[in-house]
């Protein structure tokens, strides 16, 4: 096992890996930019190395800075976390060149699965269904319309080289397709300098269901069940859960086997996730391979809570050459877990927020786990993504987990910057969420009604608390102890002393 491990990341995932190292007796080395000089992950690690200025491009995205830090600190392994360089094959290669273990798949597998086209081919050859589609060789409007008709309407027309939803147009009939083709082509040229279009079947209201896989260096590949991540806004996941409310044992077995087959075909190692779109319900639901994420997912804790294992520990053990300690049959699901991502963002406008956490108190209650990268007094900056913490509630049933998540969010005060907690509280009570009737358009459809519920102003009880805070606290901004009333600061409240009401 490694003696010292460097974490090439920041925030909650760096803290998560540091904690795993501590439990395993491995010394942890954090890296930090100037903005993170005293951030939680920097202060919690056993050692820490500065890797550059605040800009991510010059710090957390700098392969040379990461490798230098690993060398100078005497680390034997590098954990990339998620985001940043976690799916960058050059970091994986550079680690190997420097004699460091990269905690993830080999560089060529990252490269292979990073190409959507190659990944799709591998999946199809491994027997995993993909969304029917093609890039017509003949890119004339007629040929594209013919391809659409062959695939079957409705279809999605999108730039072949694209991503992020840009230039994606729906087509619902051959007769009305030419406008969509023209617009998609125009946007493809504008955004990517290439007007080549791809046509695929439009899955109207799919669920996002992904399978966690683990592969060791001894030939064992297994899956650790599914996660449903249909609640997302612009491809940013907000709520994840496991099991999926539409999963059946038979469907799970088929999809799990498909995920394992894809990982095997790709020569996968370590932890990864095979994402599917799921259409329909029950044993006959159709699933389509979407892509493979060659790293730990943000939402890995729901799997850990329900499967009763530690994925980060498993990653480190796999990377050190140990065989997986489980067989597929030994893995079981127990209960239900729901993760709510707490973002520093306005709950209505969804604009990211920066500022100090004047008050930040994590709820502590049975069945609730908080993975966080901040503490009271932390300053949230504009430099990195706005994820503050992940609240994971486990329960014997989905309904218990849901109520527990709700109770925990209502006991998770964060003041000083706005967070999406008020939106999460409404979301967890939405009738469709309660029923588990989810699809990836949930927030597109329901977002406005959720926001409307948040647009009311402070009620009298809130004003009473505000007045009490003003009246009693000398330095409340720092969460200090209450003091005697400063009678000079009672404005705007008027003393009604002697007036009984």
């Amino acid at each position, binding site marked *: 096992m490694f003696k010292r491990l460097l974490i090439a990341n920041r925030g909650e995932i760096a803290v998560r890996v540091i904690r795993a190292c501590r439990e395993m007796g491995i010394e942890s080395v954090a890296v930090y930019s100037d903005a993170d000089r005293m951030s939680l992950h920097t202060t919690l690690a056993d050692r820490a190395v500065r890797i550059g200025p605040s800009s991510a491009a010059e710090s957390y995205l700098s392969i040379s800075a990461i490798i230098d830090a690993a060398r100078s600190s005497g680390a034997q392994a590098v954990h990339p976390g998620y985001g940043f360089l976690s799916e960058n094959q050059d970091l994986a290669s550079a680690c190997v060149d420097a004699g460091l273990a990269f905690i993830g798949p080999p560089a060529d597998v990252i490269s292979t699965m990073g190409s959507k086209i190659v990944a799709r081919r591998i999946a199809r050859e491994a027997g995993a269904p993909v969304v029917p589609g093609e890039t017509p060789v003949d890119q004339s409007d007629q040929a594209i319309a013919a391809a659409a008709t062959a695939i079957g309407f409705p279809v999605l027309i999108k730039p072949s080289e694209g991503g992020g939803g840009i230039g994606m147009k729906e087509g619902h009939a051959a007769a009305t397709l030419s406008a969509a083709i023209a617009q998609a082509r125009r946007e493809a040229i504008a955004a990517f300098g290439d007007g080549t279009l791809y046509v695929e079947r439009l899955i109207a209201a799919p669920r996002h269901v992904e399978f966690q896989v683990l592969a060791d260096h001894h030939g064992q590949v297994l899956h650790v069940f599914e996660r449903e991540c249909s609640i997302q806004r612009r491809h940013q996941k907000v709520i994840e859960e496991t099991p999926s409310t539409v999963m059946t044992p038979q469907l799970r077995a088929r999809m799990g086997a498909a995920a394992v087959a894809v990982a095997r075909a790709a020569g996968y190692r370590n932890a990864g996730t095979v994402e599917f779109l799921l259409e329909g319900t029950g044993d006959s639901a159709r699933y389509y391979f979407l892509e493979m994420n060659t790293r730990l997912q943000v939402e890995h804790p729901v799997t850990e809570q329900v499967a009763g294992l530690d994925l980060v520990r498993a990653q480190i053990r796999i990377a050190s050459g140990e065989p997986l300690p489980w067989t597929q049959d030994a893995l079981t699901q127990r209960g239900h877990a729901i993760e709510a991502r707490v973002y520093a963002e306005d709950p209505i406008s969804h604009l990211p927020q920066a500022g100090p956490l004047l008050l930040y108190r994590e709820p502590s209650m049975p069945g609730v786990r908080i993975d966080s990268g901040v503490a009271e007094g932390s300053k949230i900056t504009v430099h990195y993504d706005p994820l503050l913490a992940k609240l994971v509630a486990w329960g014997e049933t989905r309904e218990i987990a849901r109520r527990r998540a709700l109770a925990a969010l209502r006991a998770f005060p964060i003041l000083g910057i706005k967070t999406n907690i008020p939106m999460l509280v409404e979301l967890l009570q939405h009738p469709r969420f309660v029923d588990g009737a989810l699809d990836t358009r949930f927030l597109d459809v329901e977002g406005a009604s959720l926001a409307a519920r948040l647009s009311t102003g402070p009620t009298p009880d809130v004003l009473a*608390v505000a007045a009490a805070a003003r009246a009693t606290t000398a330095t409340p901004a720092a969460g200090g102890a209450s003091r005697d009333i400063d009678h000079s600061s009672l404005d705007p409240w008027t003393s009604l002393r002697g007036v009984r009401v």
Partner: protein
Amino acid sequence: MTSTTRAWIHGRLFGACVSESAGDRPFDVVPLGQGRFQLIDGGRRRTAFAVVAGDAWVFLDGRVFVVPTSGQTTRRVSADDATALMAPMPATVVSIHVAPGQRVDRDALLITLEAMKMELPIKAPRAGRVTSLACHAGELVQPGVRLLEIDYGT
């Protein structure tokens, strides 16, 4: 209708004008230290959290409110004409889509900012004419500073 919200705080009764109807019984608010407050409303107890940093931030039942120092109105969540033309947070100007003198419709895209890996569009709150620009592409802009001026009267 303006009425008075009342609360017992440290054994003294306080009142504040609020622009909605309040109950006819005062709240009892007991500071518990560390920003925790016990709010007693009739027999019902709840725990609230609050800090004062200029405005008062209050957390109650999963909702957060920013109560301004004036106390009698609450901060609007929707942007008004002035704040609509400011960066909501420190951000970088990616591109400017208008020029001085140009007429713009309501919701026209004026400026694109980027912060925290997200693009933030600055749109015209109402129709008008751009009179001046106060930023340039690539500039790091701070919240609270107007990025451009629009004359809505013309």
